[in-house]
């Protein structure tokens, strides 16, 4: 073994740097995903020669990306030593920002969440306040967990996120948060920690989170529906997240129900409004009492009332469920998922009445083959799915073969030449913005 390492490293020396990067990237991903872990398996899967494989593995051990693990299954002769990806070579910072809460966490390089924290927050506090909060808690998480320096930040934001034109290019505006337009939120966060940042819509990261660690684990075709103030859906088809041409796929809340948008009749605010009307005109004695006590009603109160058997609330949630189900049915027919996961505050509060409504409409309007084995469940991950998904986004980006080839030889994505350039550009752009005369206000 020792002899192999010393003699063959020169034999396997590549002719071109590109070929070396490509083989390093290929082998790293095979080990990282568990597709092949012994030298023999790696040679077979990569179709690279023994000497090349040995050389590349030695390089990646030196770079701190791989380590030798325990003995594998012997297939005649000596049991082979398994290669392991060093999931502790770096860390990932992740955050999911929603209309009324933020979630933050730190994950290892396998996307395993190590610590997470959720707290109430108001988006209308402005981007500066949210940015400051994120930086404070990220600092605290890094200090608390004593994990190695981060390799990237994954961010889930309310509303669709445009696809960037090139690697490490930061998407320019946060289109769905009006008051944030023109504020360099992603740039500032990326610069603050000196790491690349990757953003997706909240519903897309939640879909990825459910597929990785929730109800969709091990499934290749799932739909995730987020029922909150707005309504949107995420789709994983044949193992891949579907983002759409502009990155805005899944905005089912904009389907029409009569003359109204779906989210205007079945979103959290619509449900609260209906509940308040029923409290005031006597249709729901329970809500009337709650309204008198609290002075306001939310979908949580309506869910609680339904659980206690308040007929008005049971019917209201059932009707909202059916409306959502009617919007989901065509999507179900189109993509034939094996699972629909329903999350968001309306799903958390809505209980069985809401779920029954969704099931009724989806099963009634779907082709029998499509609905035969289809499961519809409530999310168990809650807002954690956004964090797990954000970590997945960072991993998929950093370890995408083209991107990986750009940094694998340096041992860390932070040394990727394009990222270095991007960081310089952002720094220069922010400096010039800061130098401009005061009084320029974001629209």
């Amino acid at each position, binding site marked *: 073994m020792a002899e192999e390492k010393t003699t063959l490293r020169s034999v396997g020396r590549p002719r071109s740097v590109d070929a070396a990067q490509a083989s390093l990237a290929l082998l790293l991903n095979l080990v990282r995903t568990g597709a092949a872990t012994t030298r023999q398996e790696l040679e077979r899967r990569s179709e690279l020669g023994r000497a090349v494989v040995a050389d590349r593995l030695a390089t990646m051990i030196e770079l701190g990306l791989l380590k030798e693990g325990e003995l594998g299954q012997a297939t005649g002769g000596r049991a082979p030593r398994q290669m392991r990806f060093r999931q502790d070579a770096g860390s990932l910072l992740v955050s999911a920002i929603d209309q009324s*809460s933020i*979630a933050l*966490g730190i994950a290892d390089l396998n996307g*395993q*969440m*190590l*610590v*997470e*924290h*959720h*707290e*109430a927050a108001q988006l209308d506090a402005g981007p500066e306040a949210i940015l400051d*909060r994120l930086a*404070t*808690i990220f600092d*605290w998480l890094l200090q*608390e*967990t004593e994990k190695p320096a981060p390799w990237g930040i994954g961010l889930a934001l309310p509303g669709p996120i445009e696809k960037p034109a090139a690697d490490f290019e930061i998407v320019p505006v946060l289109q769905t948060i009006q008051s944030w337009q023109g504020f360099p939120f992603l740039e500032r966060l990326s610069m603050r920690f000196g790491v690349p940042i990757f953003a997706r819509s909240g519903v897309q990261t939640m879909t990825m989170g459910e597929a990785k*660690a*929730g109800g969709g684990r091990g499934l290749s075709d799932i739909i995730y529906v987020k029922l909150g103030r707005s309504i949107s859906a995420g789709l994983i088809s044949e193992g891949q997240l579907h983002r759409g041409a502009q990155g805005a796929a899944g905005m089912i809340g904009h389907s029409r129900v009569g003359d109204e948008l779906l989210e205007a009749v079945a979103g959290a605010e619509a449900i609260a409004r209906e509940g308040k009307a029923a409290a005031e005109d006597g249709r729901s004695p329970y809500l009337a009492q709650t309204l008198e*006590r*609290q002075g306001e009603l939310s979908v*949580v109160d309506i869910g*609680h009332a339904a*659980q206690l058997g308040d007929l008005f609330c049971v019917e209201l949630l059932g009707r909202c469920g059916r409306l959502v189900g009617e919007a989901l049915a065509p999507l179900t027919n189109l993509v034939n998922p094996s699972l629909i996961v329903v999350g968001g*505050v309306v799903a*958390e*509060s809505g*209980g*069985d009445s809401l779920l029954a409504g969704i099931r009724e409409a989806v099963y009634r309007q779907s082709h029998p083959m499509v609905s035969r084995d289809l499961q519809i469940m409530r999310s*168990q*991950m*809650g*807002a*954690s799915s956004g964090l797990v998904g954000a970590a997945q986004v960072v991993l998929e980006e950093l370890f995408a073969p083209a991107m990986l080839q750009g940094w694998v030889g340096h041992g860390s994505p932070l040394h990727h030449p394009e990222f270095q350039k991007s960081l310089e550009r952002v720094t220069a752009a922010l400096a010039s913005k800061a130098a401009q005369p005061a009084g320029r206000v974001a629209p």
Partner: protein
Amino acid sequence: MNSKTPGDTAMSIAGLGPHGERAVPADQIQLTQTDAAQARGRRFSVAVVLHTTTSDWSKQELAGIAAALGLYSAALVEVVDCNFDFELQVAALARLAREKVDAVISIPIGNARVAQAHRALTQSGRRLVLLDNAPTGMLPGTDYASVVSTDNFGLGQSCAAMLSAHIPQGGAAGILGYGIDFFATHEREIAFRKWMGSHRPDVTLVRERFADLDGAGAAALAMVGKTPSLSGIFAVWDVPAMKAVQALAQKNIDIPITTVDLGNEVALDMARHGMIKGVGAQLPYDQGSAAARVTLAALLGLPVPPWVALAGREVTPSDVIEAYQVIWHLPAPRTIIESVRSSFAAQIQDAGE
């Protein structure tokens, strides 16, 4: 948040659950007469696994669990004291997964290191209700039924607000933090920092951590040594707070401290107008009682919320006797009552002079 009675907690829970869940107040978890009759008929057996059984918090928690289970003819068949040792907890859970218990109420000691043992217990068919903490990655429904906790975020905010009064403009405050990865103490510390950051940005925060209780006194001394201008300390629970009080007193250092939980020693120190100036107290008896009701509901197959929380109660030296009664469901000990009376008499005398 704190002038409210334990039964009126609906509006005062500040923190979100381990998966960002909005809390369901513990008093909303009630069994109907039909459920109660069914529970009594099935004579459930429940075991409890705690980090320690010797702390005041644990004793009250157990009393609440035992009383509520007993009310519904469920037997509390075993109480495991893990003595803060996660390996003991892992072994206990593995054993309980083979024994004749229907459900386990457990407080996970730490995070990732005990997650698998808790998962395996649920996979063995037992119902699992967690206190205070769900290890990262464990999911309600699949891995456990529910987490029942005090609003630790609210407790941290309370402690910051109470300590703030003792910190001069531009002063420094210390955090005596727990060096073990634990959700409840994380939440308290994050909330303390957040409150200080938004209400007292002039205050500099420093921190020392202790990995075991015996190190808490030394950590407090180290913090004062490094920052001599320190004007106050927040300790993440009462036992390390009292270790700090003892260590500081030995060096003749007197510094205001706020902490979580009204243990006997902390209550006495407050009554004597010692270093402890304020407490954000959990209501462990009520928490235990709620955990028992959640456990029974889960055993009956009823839907249970993933995050059930109770608001805490602020305690200051002026209402330590009344707070003691609410939290402990007992009259305050004679020593506490006499200390309050004598310091009150001294105050009147001071005022007269």
